[in-house]
């Protein structure tokens, strides 16, 4: 909660909700007749509308990427370290658009919204989405905002997958594509983590086949465990060791003591899980993790990411983090190799970091330098 807004903050921001009544045909074959997307914008769109940047969020992200909703907010938006005046995504130069994706649970149409045909929450009946569906809905959003070409489409993790898909689905609408801590497709281990998280949700007795809303309950425990699993994989062994070690929150190992022992890490993870379960919809979590699992950039191009990237017209910035084992640097090497194979412009940096996958969200001097200097170069194009 800031007493005064920091000078490099975008300040107090207000989300806006946009309604779309033109049916959207989805990859699963179903159609969404109408939907709404909630978004925030930072900075000013210039006269020739050439300075717009799209932020694509990851699994648990949403439209509130920067600034504060009110002076009583405890924390700014999720990517506030990177979006603002003078920051890498410089709002003095760029008009930044950040949305909550379709299928999410922060205001855009998703499983927790009311299905207009039944008058009840969509719940498990909400259509399955793929990354390309998000991209297509984001293109509609761009149309509505009067943005024909993005100066850059930017995303970390699952957001990076959306950025790459943008470059293939709408090659002429993306000048630059920033793909951070992402992958051409998830590994088996990655899918395994997601499935374990999904099983935690589904096996919660309050899940009720996904119709928990109709029964006025929530699978809080299952969703909390799902988040705990995810959270472990977003941190590095080193970071967890440094932050928590084997420190105890309560109890002791004294001989003769029968007191229950609780490690700090246990308490931390439970708190994170519990907190997340209050804010996130379980059906959204299932839907989004499946979209992650299904993504495979090269699938429809003969399983050849080089052939896929040949369609792109954008220039690429790819960034990875040394201790990220969920989206390891090797995954970014695969992206870079495919881009080189397709003879595309690409800049790649591997940031030394202790923070695992979470590093893409955290302040880091070198990351800020690479990201900021790349974007500074494209602001003048």
């Amino acid at each position, binding site marked *: 909660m800031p007493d005064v807004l920091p000078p490099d903050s975008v300040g107090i921001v207000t989300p806006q909700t946009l309604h779309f009544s033109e049916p959207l045909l989805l990859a699963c074959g179903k159609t969404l007749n109408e939907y709404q997307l909630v978004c925030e914008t930072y900075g000013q769109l210039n006269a020739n509308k050439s300075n717009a940047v799209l932020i694509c969020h990851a699994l648990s992200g949403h439209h509130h990427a920067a600034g504060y909703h009110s002076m009583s907010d405890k924390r700014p938006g999720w990517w506030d370290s990177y979006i603002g005046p003078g920051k890498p995504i410089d709002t003095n130069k760029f008009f930044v658009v950040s949305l909550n994706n379709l299928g999410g649970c922060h205001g855009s149409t998703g499983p927790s919204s009311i299905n207009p045909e039944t008058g009840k929450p969509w719940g498990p009946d909400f259509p399955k989405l793929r990354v390309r569906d998000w991209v297509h809905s984001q293109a509609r959003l761009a149309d509505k905002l009067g943005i024909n070409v993005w100066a850059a489409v930017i995303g970390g993790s699952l957001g990076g997958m959306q950025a790459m898909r943008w470059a293939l689905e709408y090659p002429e609408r993306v000048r630059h594509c920033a793909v951070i801590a992402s992958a051409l497709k998830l590994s088996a281990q990655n899918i395994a983590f997601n499935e374990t998280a999904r099983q935690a949700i589904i096996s919660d007795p309050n899940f009720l086949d996904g119709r928990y809303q109709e029964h006025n309950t929530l699978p809080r425990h299952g969703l909390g465990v799902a988040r705990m699993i995810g959270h472990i994989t977003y941190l590095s062994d080193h970071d967890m060791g440094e932050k928590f070690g084997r420190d105890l929150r309560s109890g002791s190992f004294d001989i003769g003591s029968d007191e229950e022992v609780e490690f700090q890490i246990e308490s931390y993870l439970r708190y994170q899980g519990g907190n997340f379960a209050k804010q996130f919809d379980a059906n959204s979590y299932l839907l989004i993790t499946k979209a992650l699992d299904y993504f495979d950039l090269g699938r429809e191009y003969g399983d050849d990411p080089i052939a896929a990237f040949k369609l792109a017209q954008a220039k690429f910035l790819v960034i990875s983090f040394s201790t990220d084992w969920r989206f390891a640097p090797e995954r970014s090497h695969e992206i*870079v190799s495919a881009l080189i*194979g397709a003879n595309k*412009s690409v*800049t*790649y*940096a591997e940031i030394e970091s202790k923070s695992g996958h979470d590093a893409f969200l955290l302040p880091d001097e070198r990351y800020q330098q*690479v990201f900021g200097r*790349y974007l500074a*170069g494209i602001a003048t194009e």
Partner: protein
Amino acid sequence: MRIDLNEIQHWIKQSSRILDLGCGDGTLLKFLIDTKHVDGYGLEIDAEQINLCIDKGLNVIEQNLDRGLGNFADNSFDTVLMTQALQTLHFPHKVLDEMLRVGKECIVTFPNFGHWKARYHLATHGRMPVSDLLPYEWYDTPNIHFCTFKDFEVLCRERNYKVINRQVVNEASGQLLKDVMPNLFGETAIYHLSK
């Protein structure tokens, strides 16, 4: 621009595809893009140098050359360059093989350790030479594989590299002598190789 970089431009064709290994701050790549309209990539591992390449709008890829060039296809570049980086590699001969796999031709420059100043320093002081060009102490130098003009010539023969051009260049003194006795008076060697 460093003198070896200045010489190299004569061996680069217009609009060719270039890979610059250990591209530093990107001076050469930028110069070749501006004057010869080449397109290509630079590989570098130093964070600050990478930033300077980004400032120039270059395609710079953070990659350790000792990891190989496995991410580059055979014959995918017209020329693969490596200036003043050969002596920093763990396996220079393997990187040279890789350069000739990936590129149709390659250009390599390196400090000639057979230069009379190096010999004089070692002969009179009995200690490893430290010079303006190579200002490091032996124990903390990035330069771990020194060779002479002659050594490199032998390597080319052993590994069947075809030498298209060879040259030594000096920043200032010894301009005449270097052509007569390159291994004694040449400071920097430049080799233009093919398979």
